[in-house]
């Protein structure tokens, strides 16, 4: 636990000072943190052995919710829009969760994929409402009542995001150690026994699904604000796949993993975009293979060392 805290603090501190040195990194880091949040949601589900290939649904749903609310001049304030976007995804997760928690393994993944693809198709189809494939612009809202310029807004959003990520990570860490988190792991290791403890695996998974939907929603809400534009691509299955990719890349051993993975993902993507603009997918793919075959515990596993997983971690 102490080790994880030290690591978390170091990571946070490193992140907190970066934008001061290189202003242009603010947005990229914020984007990475947003993807980290979604990947954290994926990690929660991975603890139950379930993989969702459709979390782009919640990511994009809150992003579009924010876009619509901001365009409607309703709650034209970042500190209102973010929780509203998150709540929208939470509601959707509460609804979708009712169905998907009945499924396991590949069917869980496929059903999530299907639902997100329906939403993706709708975003593209309902052109008059959603702007189709070109998406919607998100006007820059006020931040705590202040009309910031671009740079200040980006900086403020970054620090807010960092703060929210810490809160989210700490909460998820606590949750994973709580009986509910342990029951979640039990779905992966022995669902039958869980039933025979009088626990409903569906309810346990439902809670986790809700949490993961909220986390992805939080990420989506912020990304809508910080990039000022939303497109259906946020809901495409490849995007959902990236979240899983990031979670595995970072490692699911600790809550810092997904964020580490997201940062690495952005760095590789940024570098590849400069030096190999036509083959950055391949670079990422090779990187992932290397991680899976040579460091299966992910980046977090490399950094934190391979420690026996016990209660505290």
């Amino acid at each position, binding site marked *: 636990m102490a080790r994880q805290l030290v690591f978390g603090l170091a990571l946070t501190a490193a992140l907190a000072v970066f934008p001061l040195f290189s202003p242009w990194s603010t947005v990229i880091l914020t984007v990475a943190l947003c993807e980290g949040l979604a990947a954290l949601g994926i990690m929660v589900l*991975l603890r139950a*052995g379930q*993989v969702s290939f459709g979390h782009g649904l919640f990511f994009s749903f809150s992003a579009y919710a924010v876009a619509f609310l901001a365009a409607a001049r309703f709650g034209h304030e970042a500190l209102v829009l973010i929780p509203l976007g998150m709540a929208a995804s939470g509601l959707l997760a509460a609804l979708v969760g009712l*169905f998907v928690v*009945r*499924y396991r*393994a*590949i*069917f869980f*993944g*496929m*059903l999530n*994929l*299907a*639902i997100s*693809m*329906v939403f993706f*198709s*709708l975003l*593209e*189809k309902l052109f008059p409402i959603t702007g189709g494939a070109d998406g919607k612009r998100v006007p820059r809202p006020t931040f705590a009542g202040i009309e910031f310029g671009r740079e200040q807004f980006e900086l403020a959003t970054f620090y807010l995001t960092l703060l929210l990520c810490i809160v989210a990570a700490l909460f998820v860490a606590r949750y994973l150690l709580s009986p509910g988190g342990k029951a979640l792991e039990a779905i992966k290791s022995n669902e*039958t026994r869980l039933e025979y403890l009088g626990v409903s695996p569906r309810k346990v998974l439902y809670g986790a699904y809700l949490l993961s939907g909220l986390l992805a929603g939080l990420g989506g809400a912020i990304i809508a604000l910080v990039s000022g534009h939303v497109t259906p691509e946020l809901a495409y*299955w*490849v995007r959902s*796949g990236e979240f*899983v*990719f990031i979670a*595995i890349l970072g490692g699911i051993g600790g809550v810092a993993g997904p964020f580490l993975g997201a940062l690495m993902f952005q760095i590789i993507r940024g570098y590849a975009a400069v030096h190999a603009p*036509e*083959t*950055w*997918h*391949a670079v*990422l*793919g*090779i990187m*992932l*293979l290397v991680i*899976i*075959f040579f460091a*299966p515990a992910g980046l977090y596993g490399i950094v934190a060392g391979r420690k026996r997983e016990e209660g505290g971690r």
Partner: protein
Amino acid sequence: MPPEMLLLAALDGLAYGSLIFLVAVGLSLIFGVLGIVNVAHGSFYAIGAYVAAASVLALGAAGLPTWLAFPALLASAALVGILLGGLTEALLLRRIYGKEEVLQLIVTFAVFMILEDAQKVVFGVQPYFANAPMNWLGTVEVFGIFYTGYQLILMPLVALAVLLGLRFFLRRTSFGRAIVAVTQDREAATAMGIDATRVYLITFIIGASLAALGGALASATTSLTPGIGAGTLVLSFAVAATAGLGRIEGAAVAALLIGLGRSAAVYFAPEFDVLIPYLIMMVVLLIRPQGLFSTVQTRKV
């Protein structure tokens, strides 16, 4: 809407369904035997298409007779299946069979990302097509509407041949039976002297070749552009999951269902045609979580 329009819509759905079937049945077969949902399947489809188009164009450039294009399509599919499929299985998948499903899925996802770019580097980004085989087969007239013989007759025939061929192979040949045995109980099959490693490799190659065959057939009617693999993959996921993963005949029915559903949508609700496959899949999974043709298996305690 005159009644013959229904028939016309059905004919379109048949051709479309045949194509998706070829891709989906490979996906389904691989899942049934190896237990892996192969995301790289979309790339096998795309690369199969590119290789086929390239070889058909090369034949044309060499001034050889057009009918040679048909064996060239088959050969391209087999080449892609054996080379790419074989390498993927032998170099990567073989090392992770014991691991979690998620990791296996992600490995194929990584392969998909790599192959998508590889395809771009090799074949470029300009649309690519080789329509000689389609034009060579001419057209067929139904109720005053012209259809290409290629889509209306050849594609469904190939799909049917693959379906019957797979059935025969799995039920009547000793290697096919070995595949079925490994699917049902790997340990018992290995104890009986079946080489599971070989079964996995060959199954994966067959599955990959089927995807490549789908691509090869599509190359005559469709312009190949970057990204065709991703779209086809999701569609064949939908078919395979609707059918119940691992179900070969089921994949045929589901592909037909989705093909017909889609073409009906173009007539009656054109705004919904892209939603149809996913809606069918969702409805089926909500009613029958294990897919149309699978049976529930209870764990022994």
